[in-house]
């Protein structure tokens, strides 16, 4: 079972890879919409990437209003 810290780190790594930014430039408290400069369709791409990686389903309404990596990781953790 992953810890929340591990999950958060994996979320940051996947986001950095998907949007082609340096992993070191992202931190758990970052607003990913602002930090990555992404729109809602790109956020759904990230959601798909995360679902595929973690082997879970995360309904859109559970991440609606979520904009920082740490909270996103918490939502994922609750489905692992």
């Amino acid at each position, binding site marked *: 079972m992953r810890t929340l810290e591990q999950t958060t780190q994996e979320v940051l790594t996947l986001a950095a890879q998907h949007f082609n930014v340096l992993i070191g430039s992202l931190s758990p408290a970052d607003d990913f919409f602002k930090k990555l400069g992404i729109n809602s369709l790109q956020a759904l791409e990230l959601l798909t990437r995360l*679902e595929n990686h973690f082997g879970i389903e995360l*309904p*859109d309404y559970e991440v609606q209003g979520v904009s920082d990596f740490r909270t996103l990781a918490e939502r994922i953790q609750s489905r692992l």
Partner: protein
Amino acid sequence: MKSFSGNTLRWEWRDGIFELTLDRAPANEIGRTMLGELEQFVSALHSMAAQTSVCILSSAQPKGFSAGADLRELYHAAAPLPEKERLAGVREFLERIHKVLNTIDATPVVTIAAVHGACFGGGFELALACDLIIADKMARFAFPELRLGLIPGFGGIPRLKRDLGNAFVRDILLTGRSVNAARAQAVGLVSQLAGEGQALQVARSTAAQIAKFDPAARSAAKHFIKPIPHDELRLEIDIFCDLFQRPAVMAALKKFDESTDAMPYLP
């Protein structure tokens, strides 16, 4: 080779296989121009059906297969009109798109939707008219219409119910949630999963296999297994139009139109 290139899509016919490519930025929103070009396409598909074994539908837009109906166009066309004319315009659009999708659904040609990225609303309904859906593992499917106070209007509910049953329809319709390609394959919506960017290649490989079969047997098999739910499709148009008359719908479309997000599709 025969081909057509329009403002929102293009198609090619080669050796018995049609390839229709949707190509309207940002995400193949289906408005009046695309509808008109889809009508031209199904006319060509119908007239060349005897020489055609397979038709592949795909998208050249990186964001996905299609984000659905062009809601901004719908809002701007409807907003200045009196209620009666507004409703007549919506009904006319729905009648036309239903005719297009019914033709794709019923053609003896085997149809394959090669899907990547967003496949939402009307785009999802276009894919559902096809016989097979081959999806890139980054594809996502959704019916977000309830957010606007509407139901899907391009035949999505009857076709999804026909193909998968009522429970999954209720799940995605009543929650508005999007599902990923793995889930879509698990419930039987997606026939094959492809790697990222590989859906079209997998569809071509599948088309080559399908093309080997006897056309009469292929056509009979499709006709036998894929009845068109005409009564429910008619009812869907009526329900959509009833809902569309409510002020809440125009308010929701206005909110969508005024969204500061470049693409406010998140269900």
